């Protein structure tokens, strides 16, 4: 489903090649490096391609991403979606784990207020996101690396805007300080 969304027009073959890597998903950092490598070869100058993880709720935002794909909304392909049943499921632990494993930015996306499939899930998401922001700041990472957005199933174009905007924000911040070190702090079970 998502593949359609992130495929830049005219390069479907390439996307298909990349897919297994995305699926393996264990070392997003390495993939960013590889992508960065490819890009560098093409442009002959290294460029920072952010590694963005998006948590999208099943009922609105994930469908919104799908709409963006169906409507061929042009937007950056540098993100990976993780589908959750509701934005209220995305606890600070999820977001921090993504950052720890090499994400440069994490976007949490859910339904607009009043539209949550579970009624109050996105109010819960706001509370959880406040905690996440506090932890991110104390850890010494920029608060701008995490973001909470509401995108409905019909808002394909808005999805594209949000993604592009967030990518710009992360590009401005540069790579996560955790990715500057060659060996990451390790994986816990």
């Amino acid at each position, binding site marked *: 489903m998502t593949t359609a969304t992130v495929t830049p027009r005219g390069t479907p073959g390439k996307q298909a090649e990349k897919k297994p890597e995305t699926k393996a998903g264990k070392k997003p950092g390495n993939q960013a490096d590889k992508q960065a490598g490819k890009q560098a070869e093409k442009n002959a100058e290294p460029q920072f391609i952010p590694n963005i993880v998006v948590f999208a709720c099943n009922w609105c935002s994930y469908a919104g991403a799908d709409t963006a794909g169906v409507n061929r909304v042009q937007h950056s392909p540098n993100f990976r979606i993780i589908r959750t049943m509701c934005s209220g499921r995305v606890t600070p*632990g999820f977001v921090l784990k993504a950052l720890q494993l090499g994400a440069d930015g994490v976007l949490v996306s859910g339904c607009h207020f009043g539209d949550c499939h579970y009624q109050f899930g996105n109010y819960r998401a706001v509370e959880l996101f406040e905690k996440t922001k506090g*932890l991110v700041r*104390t850890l*010494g*990472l920029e608060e701008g690396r995490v973001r909470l957005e509401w995108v409905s199933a019909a808002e394909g174009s808005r999805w594209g805007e949000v993604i592009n905007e967030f990518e710009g924000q992360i590009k401005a911040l540069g790579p996560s300080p955790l990715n500057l070190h060659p060996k990451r702090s390790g994986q816990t079970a």
Partner: protein
Amino acid sequence: MSTKKEQLKKSRANWCLECGKCTAVRPISQANGTYSPRRLLAEGLFYGGEDLVSDSSLWSCLTCQLCSARCPADVKYSNYMRDVREDAYKLGIGGQPTHSGAMQAVWDIQASPTLLPNRTEWLEPDMKVQNKGDFVYFVGCLPFYEPLFGKDFDFSPLSIARDTVRILNRIGIEPVVMDTERCCGHDVYWLGQQDKFETLARLNIEQIKASGGKTVITACPECALALDHLYNKHIGPTGFQVKHIAEVVADNLDKLSFNGYQSEVTYQDPCRLGRFLGVYDQPRKVLEAIPGVTLREMQRIKAGAICCGTTNWTHCDATSKQIQKRRLTEARDTGADTMVTACPKCQIHFRCARCSPEGSTIDIKVTDFVNVVAQALGLSGADCRAGE
């Protein structure tokens, strides 16, 4: 991986007299009748033990050392559990993290040397701290607990840090507070993640040395245990001594004049401060020195105290809640209105139990030792009587 022979020698399991006291006293066994330390030891050491690494009982041990305190043969059960956890960690097996792994990620991220944490935002203008000096105040995880638990449990973990600095100032100590301090590594150590523990320990030792600290003061028993015993044992002589704030206050009682604090309190011995570090009397001495405070002791205290039911942000379940509720009931039955603990984690766990439907009927407040002292000195901004 250590061999069975080494583990047997270290754990002293062959000295077991089969008296069964360890099962009888263990907080877990009391709430969950099938849990037996002896059986796990035997399973691990004599019957293969392949299953023990993937057994969830491995992670439910609270490492509170109560069984060792009672054992006539000095069998080191908690330490054995820790060694098996190290084996499990090497095989990629871990316990079930609580709070969806938020604290686990916080430790792991802090182990990255390129990170520059931002941990001193909570300091207020009236607090006197310095960049270099003999005394270091090691804050620990409090700045992380603030966003994570403050709202849910209706208290401010950082008030413990603020009050500690104010008390130290009153005593005449201007401590160093390190902006880029790391997690002390206590929890990763007990989860068997030796490599992470060593990384965190080295980062901390380096900073403390750079600050010129000769005495490290902390308001967290786990930090005290890690900085004192664990660093010296696993990294090498650190060259600084470590004190819990209760010891510092007890030593400086003559410099403090209390306004008073009207309350009947009972004191909860944190396992790390009591059984591990042997600090039982200092906090009691301080509490008794405060005019207006009556100390009422629970039935099981000091070396026999029951711990707060969960540890290392791993494996919190119905058994943990049972342990917490029993302890809260025991505290209430003393007739005290407040349970004072010297460990921020104890407070979080007991407050969590108070939020459960059953726990909310146990009418006792929970607060930190530091908050009580600061209030009695007229220093605290935090209302430590909150959290009903």
